[in-house]
């Protein structure tokens, strides 16, 4: 039997769609509790700025697709940073089956760099950290994907 390893290009809708699918499998046991949050993810590269929206909807996660701009009336907060910073994070996750040391979501956003969380106001920004463990769990699910390559 031949195993075909799929490479997911980051950033892309295919990548977030598949990440969401595998993350939902670990949400099924409900141990982290429910999460309700619409979170934007902005990935900046020399070639482009890409924006995606993830929805934590109770015990499910939905990938809502790529958008041209974030509307902070509907997306409560977004994460922004260079593509290379995200790639370093996913590389660490794939190597260790989870983010470690300075590559956790909170650590990367703590000082506002290399990633930054931006909400419409401080309550919206704080809301992201009410679900820190759920977001980390979502990102850590990347270790279940095949190879992650740069778009």
């Amino acid at each position, binding site marked *: 039997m031949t195993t075909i390893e799929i490479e997911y290009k980051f950033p892309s809708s295919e990548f977030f769609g598949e990440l969401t699918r595998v993350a939902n499998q670990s949400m099924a046991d409900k141990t*982290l*509790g*429910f999460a*309700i949050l619409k979170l934007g993810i902005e990935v900046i590269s020399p070639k482009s700025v890409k924006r995606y929206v993830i929805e934590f*909807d*109770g*015990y*499910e996660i939905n990938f809502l697709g790529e958008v041209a701009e974030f509307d902070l009336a509907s997306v409560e907060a977004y994460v922004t940073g260079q593509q290379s910073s995200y790639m370093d994070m996913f590389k660490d996750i794939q190597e260790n089956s*989870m983010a*470690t040391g*300075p590559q*956790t979501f*909170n*650590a990367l956003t*703590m*000082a*506002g760099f290399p990633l930054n969380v931006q909400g419409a*106001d*401080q*309550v919206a*920004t*704080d*809301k992201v*950290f*009410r*679900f*820190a*463990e759920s977001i*980390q769990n979502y990102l850590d699910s990347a270790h279940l994907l095949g190879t992650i390559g740069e778009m």
Partner: protein
Amino acid sequence: MTNTAINLEYIERAKRGEFDLGWLRDSKSEWGTKPTISKIGLTLRDISYGTYGDVPDNPKRRTMAPRGSDIDPDVPDMGYTVNTKMEVWSDNVLDLYEEAVSRQWSATRDIPWSQLPELPSDIEHSICQLATLLSEVEMVAADFPAKWLWRINHDFVEAKMFLCTQVMDEARHTEVFRKRALANGGGLGKAKAVVEQFLKLILDAQSYDEGSALMHLLGEGIVLSIFRAGEFLSPSDVEKRIFRLCMQDEARHVAYGTMHLKYRLDRDPSIAEDFHAFLDRGEELMTVLFTTPEVVEPMAILAAGGVKQAEEIGVFAADILRQRIVEEYLARCDKAGLPRRKRINLPSEMLTGIEGTN
């Protein structure tokens, strides 16, 4: 006068099958109405329909009778002293209660204690001192709501229920940091008088307004930033998980405090000066905390990776953290409608780089 005498005649009638059934015939409930159940289950918001969802601004009674029930006219007065909705309410309190209940965790079960690595002495000392401080300060955030809970009118039951979740959260935080201090061959460190003075200020607050501003907005805002920094600086994945789980809880408490203050000020802007005065005093003590070695140095050493390295970059790391704490606190004050950038009671040296403070 409430009639509490035993009705022996009723017992005889009931034996003959002659029930009263007045409670059944005369029910004033919204019989036949059903809530729509949310995806996550039947929530408080789902059952806030009709009159059951009406939370009075100034309840007529001081009773434990469930809001919306058919209440005897001669129920006793429970002696509540917080009887105005705006004193405790926030628009997000129903959702925060549900979130809190759903996201509970166990300091015994959910922390991988057996994976704690042996750490260099200075790092273990630093994490133990930080754990000592956090174990000390977290319990006031249980004591304060507990002190006020019985005084709050039962018509604001959702706010009381949320405060009950906070009491449980803070008990768990006290537990997890005490466990961390004792789990790896270190132990408890120093408890400082200045920290106790800040806790006393909260506990001795003359009103719920005063205590909530000092605790939910100022104190827990600082602690939320410390939890975030703690996760960032953690020497192992064990501490990282501790801080991540704690930060989720703390962010809920801060969300309540900020939105409660906003609710309060939206309805009575004239009271803003009182809140400014509460926070003036709290910030004064915050300044002392920022210059207390037992508070500052453990995080500087954790950031730098050791005492030796801390001499070079530790102060820089502490400055970044302090700037973050103050900026986030001021942004919460902005959101609540209590702008303090021109009034904040910190020395100018501590405000470098913070927008709108000069």
